[in-house]
């Protein structure tokens, strides 16, 4: 265990995403209060906290869904302002959703293929005629997607309609679609929510494998603390929109403020 974490630690690179003093308010409610933390390349970075701590708000700020009133976000050394989710996606940040936002009426394959959308450049007319570069492009992307399907062990469900699959598998398809974008950073919104123990273990394995295999930097939100501690390199702890802890799983576990927050000590 110690040896493994050492080799993993060796892979971790420079800071690629830095959140600096971000505050976000909805009317009078402060969802985030001067939050700062950073994410290093190739690491698995977790954001944890009890319900209502501001985790999802934080993710939505990084993803461009919300724009913070104060503070900045630096990605690859550049500050980004008022980027919408589409621009964020273009810049190489992918995400999955807590309440699954898959294209339910489409097949597993089509869902994952749609993750390649940004990488497809052929002309709409060529696509319509299915000739030349458009067809070649479709085949190339299909190969990448088949690789991801193998990787996540969902070969048997390729043609199934996503809406018909059990929840745990849908979560996996969501992850597959995000990986198909070949993102530099992958934001996972409660990837283990609603899963049974076995599904959780599978998901942990896939997240770590994706991190190892593709080198994808992972930022994940969870409120199940035990799961997070096993797979994360570093953990940020939020409570009522404030950062109350930041460090390795061991450091966070020993942090009194974190223990209080999770045990529900009155403030």
């Amino acid at each position: 265990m110690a040896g493994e974490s050492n080799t993993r630690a060796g892979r971790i690179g420079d800071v690629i995403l830095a959140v600096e003093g971000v505050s976000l308010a909805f009317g009078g409610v402060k969802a985030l209060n001067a939050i700062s933390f950073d994410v290093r390349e190739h690491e698995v970075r977790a954001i944890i906290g009890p319900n209502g701590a501001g985790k999802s708000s934080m993710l939505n700020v990084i993803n461009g869904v919300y724009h913070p009133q104060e503070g900045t976000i630096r990605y690859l050394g550049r500050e980004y302002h008022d980027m919408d989710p589409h621009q964020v996606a273009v810049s190489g940040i992918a995400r999955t959703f807590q309440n699954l936002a898959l294209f339910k009426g489409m097949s597993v394959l089509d869902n994952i293929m749609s993750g390649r959308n940004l990488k497809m450049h052929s002309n709409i007319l060529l696509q319509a005629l299915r000739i030349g570069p458009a067809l070649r492009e479709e085949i190339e992307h299909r190969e990448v997607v088949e690789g991801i399907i193998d990787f996540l062990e969902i070969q048997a469900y390729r043609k199934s309609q996503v809406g018909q699959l059990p929840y745990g598998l849908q979560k996996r398809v969501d992850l597959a679609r995000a990986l198909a974008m070949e993102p530099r950073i992958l934001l996972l919104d409660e990837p283990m929510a609603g899963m049974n123990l076995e599904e959780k273990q599978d998901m942990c394995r896939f997240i770590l494998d994706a991190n190892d295999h593709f080198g994808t930097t992972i930022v994940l939100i969870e409120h199940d603390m035990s799961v997070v501690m096993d797979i994360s390199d570093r953990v940020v702890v939020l409570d009522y929109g404030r950062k109350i802890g930041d460090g390795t799983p061991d450091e966070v576990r020993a942090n009194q403020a974190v223990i209080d927050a999770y045990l529900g000590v009155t403030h």
Partner: protein
Amino acid sequence: MKKNWPVLLLGAVLLIGLVLPLVTGAAPGGFYVEVLLGGLMSGVLYSLVAIGFALIFKASGVFNFAQGSMVLFAALAVARMAEAMPLWLAIVLGTVIMIALAWVIERLVLRPLVNQEGVALLMATLGVTYFLDGFGQTLWGSDIYKIDLGIAKEPVMVLDKVFKGGILVNKEDFVAAFVAALLVAGLVLFFQKTATGRALRAVADDHQAAQSIGIPLNRIWMIVWSVAGFVALVAGVIWGSQLGVQFSLSQVALKALPVVILGGFTSIAGAIFGGLIIGVGEKMAEVFLGPVLVKAFDLAGGGLENWFAYVLALLFLLVRPEGLFGERNIDRV
């Protein structure tokens, strides 16, 4: 499953209505087939316009009231331009105009109103409707104009060996229906088989998720409005050739509305079947039911063709609000 009986009942009534003229001998076989064909041929056009409608609704949640006016606008453009140039060139230019129009609507109307209530967007398209109706006349005049496709309009007798008296069809209607059907098939393939089609379906399914994987909503809207514009142009040219290019075209095209109610707002298959059902239904009602009603109640005349579609749509709203192929919305309380 329990509440399905009204749908079954309505279906049964329609089916009985469909076969009754034949069974009772009210119509000779040849004439019956002629009416049926006529209904199918106008139905394909309804399907075409309805697809434009369904596409926009799927991709942006906008109930595009302006679809009928787009048909009129496109038909006017082609008819007037064709006076000065060959028809094919007028059609190409007309397509360019409709795509430009889609771009302008996306920029000036949809983008500023993104995330607004559906009602606001509906009102906006209502505004576009009146603008297009008026602006089209400002540019191209308000008389009745002709589009000549150069295909024979005279009815031809076919199959006179099979049916007594044969079937009268006119070649132009037949070619038009064929072209419309081809276009419908092409659109379906485009949406099922290409990357852009996949992106469109993705947007239709879930906006937020589509954006997060980098599908640009604005581009997709631009594409669906362009396709709807092109479809309007084809329908406008065909109807314009059959009925003359005049203001009432936008009313004819608005029949797409009952079609999508019948078929389900979000369904391409629904638009196709809805169009055919309404096309056949209203022709049958006009020809066979009309005289019966006139006789029984001593009425002045028929006119069923004008309201049959709307009454049928209303009945469908009562028994199956999501339409034949629509998704049923189950809201949590």
